[in-house]
């Protein structure tokens, strides 16, 4: 044999450890979603699923609700938001008055792919405490049904 048998549990463990370390320090290019963004991007998105709905949470603090542009086409959800953080301070803001400027300003657009199971005609959205919550219903036939299996 040319190399240690990786099926051996010990070597498996080492291999796993090595992988974990590499992932931790981002040494390898990780497998990521084609539309994923770098850490600290704006707005950040989480997606969850219940038996009835797919729920999208968009972290978008301090946005004027009229500057939120949400569209859904087939299974693609497009979110456009715009914010000007200088306006939060007031009028006549001079840039040299800033000690720190960490909050992101600008115009942003993100497109996310949702599961094929969604019904694009059944969407509702709300804006609560700076989070846009989009609830999309699933197609009737896709709603997970509990099937009881009889055990003989």
């Amino acid at each position: 044999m040319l190399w240690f048998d990786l099926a051996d549990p010990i070597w498996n463990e080492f291999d796993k450890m090595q992988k974990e370390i590499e992932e931790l320090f981002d040494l390898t290019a990780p497998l990521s979603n084609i539309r994923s963004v770098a850490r600290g991007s704006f707005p950040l998105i989480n997606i969850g699923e219940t038996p009835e709905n797919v729920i999208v949470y968009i972290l978008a603090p301090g946005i004027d609700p009229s500057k939120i542009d949400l569209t859904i086409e087939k299974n693609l959800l497009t979110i456009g938001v715009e914010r000007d953080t200088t306006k939060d301070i007031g009028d006549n803001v001079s840039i040299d008055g800033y000690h720190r400027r960490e909050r992101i300003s600008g115009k942003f657009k993100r497109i996310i792919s949702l599961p094929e199971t969604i019904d694009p005609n059944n969407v509702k959205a709300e804006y609560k405490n700076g989070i846009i919550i989009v609830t999309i219903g699933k197609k009737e036939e896709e709603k997970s049904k509990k099937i009881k299996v009889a055990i003989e």
Partner: protein
Amino acid sequence: MADKRKEIAKREDSNIAKETAKKVRTLVPPVDIYEDNEKIVLLADMPGVSKDGLDIQIEKNVLSINGKIENIVPEDAKPIYVEFGGNEYARSFTIGPEVDVNRIQANLNAGVLKLILPKAEEVKPKKIEVKVA
């Protein structure tokens, strides 16, 4: 005796389990800090925090901002794509004596905290004498 010890060990185990279940993940909110002649303005992005979950304290010269994120995710929801996580925000700053702590104003709107820290009417200039030996 041995039984008692076992019992204590068990209780400690269950406490540890409880603590890990309620693990707190603290996020550092991004801030803008702006200063003009009258005031310092602090803006912090704290999406998910409502008025009830917000706690602002000043102790001596330390301003602490703490916000608990309201749980908005239904219990039967499973994550399918995740870019953020955490259950509270916390950040602290030291402030100088020129800030009039009794007139600090706080306002929370759409997940953005705005703190206005006015400067005291009379900020007495302090003269430093340099002695030449």
